[in-house]
């Protein structure tokens, strides 16, 4: 029986191209909290992803790093448990609960055995609704954060990221590293931590997805338990900010054999009707692993770098085209020149029919491969909700990619790619690379 189904299945696969066939259910809990669910009962565990919009962008003025430190404290004691009791409980249940902070969100990623669903979600509920924020834990985690900040201060990659963020976004929260500075983190009080918690952890900004051995009824009940007691509203979200550094090349002196470069220019919103055209252009330029123009020109033809990539940044409050690479000091000037040339070529000539087709094949073919494992799918389902997509998005997304025409792509290339507005941030001691801006 099994074997017959398998054979039949294999035959059908040959006839049908791979599609993202996840069956997403929309679930609303008795208490009114919404989630996306994919039931997958073949392995007895559940991946549960909870995300709160806002994240580090909600830091109060002068309190950069408060939301980050608060997030690090959510697993350091809650209710009647201290850090140790919480950690021991997780181990006894073989449950993992990870709290991560991003520029625009806080995520709570958990994984638990079906048999331990109740006890595991009790732990998540306690950590979110009743964190202790003890002085002992604050000092300990503050020490970890400051240690991390000291390491970043001498890492050329991190320095490049910080220099770019400051030049591009100034006083907006995006302008400074989300962990804050040694000074700002040292000055944070327990009241600041509590304020950051009230700002960030609320029902008006929560997104939920579950994948695995769980039914809609079970999911509804556990969401009410985990999230039902949270306050309705958090802090207002920050304003939009344009990616707007002065164009040109800046060099930050740092004594290391290989320079690091970041580059960027204004981008495009994910809701823009031209987004999929831009997405394809970015794939051709530097977005598709080994098969991009920049990998070919900078690595394959000239051996100037181990890796170079470009990214479409579609954060909640800004959008940009960015990229990064590293190359030894004597060759950085040449590499910057190659990227500038490619940017100009894209703006002036666009892409070819062959490149368009190759990018479409890659993007449409690789999409179903992303639905790989319960935790990964849960993460994607939360992202889709936060981007405002509907549950049919995985089934229609490839059609949107395929609908882009060459004419459309090349119109967008001319409008979007702006070689005169491209800014490079180099950290290192590059030879013969003249900075044109500070």
């Amino acid at each position, binding site marked *: 029986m*099994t074997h017959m189904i398998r054979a039949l*299945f294999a035959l059908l696969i040959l006839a049908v191209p*791979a599609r993202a066939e996840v069956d997403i259910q929309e679930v609303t809990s008795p208490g009114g909290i919404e989630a996306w669910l994919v039931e997958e009962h073949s392995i007895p565990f559940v991946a549960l992803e909870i995300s709160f919009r806002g994240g580090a962008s909600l830091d109060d003025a002068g309190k950069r790093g408060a939301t980050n430190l608060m997030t690090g404290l959510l697993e350091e004691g809650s209710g009647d448990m201290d*850090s140790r009791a919480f950690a021991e409980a997780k181990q006894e249940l073989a449950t993992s609960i990870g709290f991560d902070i991003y520029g625009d969100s806080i995520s709570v990623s958990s994984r638990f055995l079906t048999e331990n669903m109740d006890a595991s979600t009790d732990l998540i509920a306690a950590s979110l609704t009743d964190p202790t924020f003890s002085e002992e834990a604050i000092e300990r985690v503050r020490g970890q954060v400051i*240690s991390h900040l000291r390491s970043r201060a001498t890492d050329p990659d991190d320095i490049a990221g910080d220099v770019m963020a400051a030049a591009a976004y100034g006083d907006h929260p995006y302008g400074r590293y989300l962990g804050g500075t040694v000074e700002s983190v040292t000055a944070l009080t327990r009241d600041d931590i509590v304020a950051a918690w009230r700002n960030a952890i609320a029902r008006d900004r929560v997104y939920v997805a579950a994948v695995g051995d769980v039914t809609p009824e079970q999911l509804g009940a556990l969401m009410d338990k985990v999230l039902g007691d949270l306050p309705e509203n958090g802090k207002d979200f920050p304003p939009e900010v344009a990616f707007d550094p002065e164009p040109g090349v800046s060099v930050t002196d740092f004594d290391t054999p290989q320079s690091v470069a970041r580059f960027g220019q204004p981008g495009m919103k994910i809701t823009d009707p031209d987004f999929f055209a831009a997405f394809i252009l970015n794939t051709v330029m530097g977005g598709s692993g080994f098969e991009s123009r920049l990998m070919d020109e900078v690595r394959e033809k000239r051996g*100037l770098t181990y890796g170079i990539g470009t990214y479409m940044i579609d954060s909640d409050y800004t959008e940009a085209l960015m990229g990064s690479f590293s190359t030894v000091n004597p060759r950085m000037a040449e590499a910057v020149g190659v990227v500038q040339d490619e940017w100009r070529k894209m703006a002036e000539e666009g892409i070819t029919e062959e490149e368009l087709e190759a990018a479409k094949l890659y993007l449409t073919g690789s999409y179903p491969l992303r639905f790989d494992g319960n935790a990964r799918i849960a993460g994607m389902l939360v992202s889709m909700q936060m981007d405002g997509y509907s549950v049919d998005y995985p089934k229609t997304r490839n059609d949107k990619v395929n609908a882009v025409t060459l004419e459309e792509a090349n119109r967008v290339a001319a409008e979007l790619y702006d070689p005169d507005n491209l800014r490079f941030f180099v950290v290192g001691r590059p030879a013969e690379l003249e900075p044109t801006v500070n």
Partner: protein
Amino acid sequence: MKRLIFACILTLVSVLPAAAQEVTDTVLDNGMDVVVIEDHRAPVVVHMVWYRAGGADEPAGKSGIAHFLEHLLFKGTDDMEPGEVHRVVAENGGSNNAFTSYDQTAYFERIAADRLELMMTMEADRMRDLILTEEDIKTERDVILEERATRTDNSPGALLNEQMQAALFMNHPYGTPLIGWRHEMETLNREDAMAFYRKYYAPNNAVLVVAGDVDPDEVIALAKKHYGPLEPTEGLEPRARPLEPVPLAPRRMTLTDDRVGQPYVIRNYIAPSRATGAQEEAAAIVYLSELLGGSSATSILGRALEFDQKLAVSTFTGYSAEALDLTTFTMGVVPAQGVTLEEAEAAMDAEIARMFEEGIDPEQFERIKTRIRANDVYARDSARGLANRYGRALTTGLTLEDVKAWPDVLQAVTPEDVLAVAEKVLQPTHSVTGYLVAPSLAPSLTPGGEEEVGQ
């Protein structure tokens, strides 16, 4: 219509009981091992070819050649243009890459299950028919030198690790960096690459692992068709690297670098692997690592140094159980502000001494055991992870039986086993201790006057 049927069948398959990951294996006539892992949850396949050759199999003076060759395998063959593998995989919506380790080099693709045969065609072609030009060598050598700069030269922590491994392994090639020493990498040439290739890239030195939505009989038939005709390397000898002498003295070093923002102390011990000792011994070291340095709030080092004594911002341990020869057990401390590396190291040693005196907390031991058992459930969520598990094991001297037995071996470990293995592994003479410091901190932090320091 077809899509409707497809969806129905998918549902049926997904409710089949946990037979989801059945493992089938065979050996082709030319000596190539084949392992097939079924996972029918998504129409995707992972195709991997593992070679039993890595950095520790390099000839003396040619460090980095195994990894360099891995890069060069993406150049052309008699049937493929340079870069064709990447292009074809991308055009078919897949992703691909390769990696080199001390004991193995692996090439893999993830792609829609119906493209499996295409992957086999390409992977079989480049097993024997690689063509390299001088231009390929020159450009790609620049790329690996850039890679060394990114991974190692730009990172003081990586430089310290490189120095420590060279000191830890006095005779075995595990002491030579996988990426290569820069001065040797600069001289690697076409003949070096082709000599390594001809000897080791052969079906009788390879393991094929296919995991995903496939039928084992079909995979084996395809493997026979594409890999079966390949010529084995005659006279390939069993892998025997220079072995370590008995170490007689603890080794210490300090790496001072302007780019160090956060100093730390790290210690590496020589330790048995699953292949060199009994799997039981390696399993006990897995527990030792978890007990000493697992989660901050529950581990011995975390509890004492981070929570009780406030001497550390973090503590860590590490153990890689899969290695053909002896492997490394690592532990270390990132000290709190104002705490010297000597104080941090002394506190770490005091906790190890205390573990031997007081024994192991049985409750904590049970928690770790529970978690390790649950990992088997979670592992079934990733066909890629399972494929890696088999590929790595079969190229580090383990058998399929060893892989299948490993979960039970882990569950049979007792606290007494852990203490016994700790006594064997945690010997000062078997260790290298490294300090990573910034110049301004060096005078007060350098141990025992054996390094020259400013002032």
